[in-house]
């Protein structure tokens, strides 16, 4: 074994388990959220940047809040506020919408999401 071989092993061996963990495990923690209004794409938010923003829909402004890797409807101009009561989203594939205001949030992450659809 030459010095070059030893250096190659030293470089690759520690990386292998990390590569396996990053690409092969279901990445359930979401990293980003796509915002749509009436089916039209508006913007992509990073869940790593805490923020509050207004998204204008059919009835008025929905208030979205991002905090510590999660996102939620903080308020919305609908009457029943089911979107607000649904609480925080944080997993890849999570989805919530204010139906009357036609504003929706879809969470994305790296790799594959664990479930194709959520039943509730």
């Amino acid at each position, binding site marked *: 074994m030459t010095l070059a*071989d030893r250096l190659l092993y030293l470089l690759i061996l520690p990386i292998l388990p990390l590569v396996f963990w990053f690409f092969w495990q279901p990445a359930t923690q979401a990293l980003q959220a796509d915002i749509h209004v*009436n089916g039209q794409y508006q913007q992509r938010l990073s869940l790593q940047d805490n923020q509050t923003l207004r998204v204008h829909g059919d009835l008025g402004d929905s208030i979205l809040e991002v905090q510590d890797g999660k996102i939620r409807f903080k308020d919305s101009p609908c009457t029943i506020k*089911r979107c607000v009561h649904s609480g925080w989203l944080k*997993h890849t594939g999570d989805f919530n919408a204010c139906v*009357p205001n036609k504003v929706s949030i879809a969470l994305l992450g790296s790799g594959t999401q664990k*479930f194709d659809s959520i039943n509730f």
Partner: protein
Amino acid sequence: MKKAFLILFITSFISACTPKEQEYRDSLFVLGTVVNVTLWGVEEQKAAQAIKDIETDLKFLHTVWHPWRFGAMSRTNELLALNEWFSANPSVLPVISKSKQLYTLSNGLFNPAIGQLIALWNFHSDEILDGPPPERSTIDTFTKDLPTMDHVEVNGFRLRATHPKIKLDVGAIAKGMAVERVITYLKQIGINNAIVNAGGDLKAIGQHGDRAWSVGIRHPRQDSVIAGLEVHDNESVFTSGDYERNFEYAEKRYHHILDPRTGYPADKTQSVTVIHPDAGLADAAATALFIAGPEQWQEIARKMKIELVMLIDQQGHVHMTKAMAKRLTFEIEPEEKIIVN
């Protein structure tokens, strides 16, 4: 040895790639909720056209079956109140016939004839729910002389009600029948791998590529999934939960799943999940079994021929059929699991 490591290193990147481009997803604001459609292996133009057609169909069904907004069902309710024979709009006949059948099979726990009771509680409204609940005397008067699906007579296209308080509200079965119609349409146009999810209740056909569709069932009390499962071709997964529509008044929570026997929200269950090929039946059964509660659900499930059931009671204990237990992988282990034959 060196070659082996290099190959392993490189292939660990390549083999992690999944062909996401074969998946087409869209969301529709229709049926008073969000309908998420996922198609697999469909060319984009065909998928986009299918979504447009689905939206048109669902908007039509929402109008014709809506219990109080102007449409075929609200007109049917006006005519039923006359207690005389009339010719019905054909669009309401399938849901009325199926409701009559499932009313009988559920021992009356699924009873869409209680539209007036639902209206008393204001659960039929699009407005904010904030109580107070209806007067007990008003509820008792209603339940003492309860309108049922047996009071709706069907003779071909003609209908008649034999109770003055009949008002049909098919909210507990409409989503299921609508999802079933969408699935039938997709198969007719040659799309055989899809999930149609209407406000959380879904039916799947085919597979996601070379694996089964995977579905997570939401925990009734936490913002996470309680259990996951692989959904087979032509299976529906429907859940009724006390968290879906509710209001609080004087520190008590009232939800929308009313027990026709008492006139009050059924209070022994947090959620029921049913798996069955027939989405309309699954929808109605989830409601009926929720109302039946932990003491009675097995009897009703047997009568409705439902083999895959999970009921979570008010203490968070999970009751399941053996067949359902085999299908589920719990993400959050419940304190207690009761598995029955």
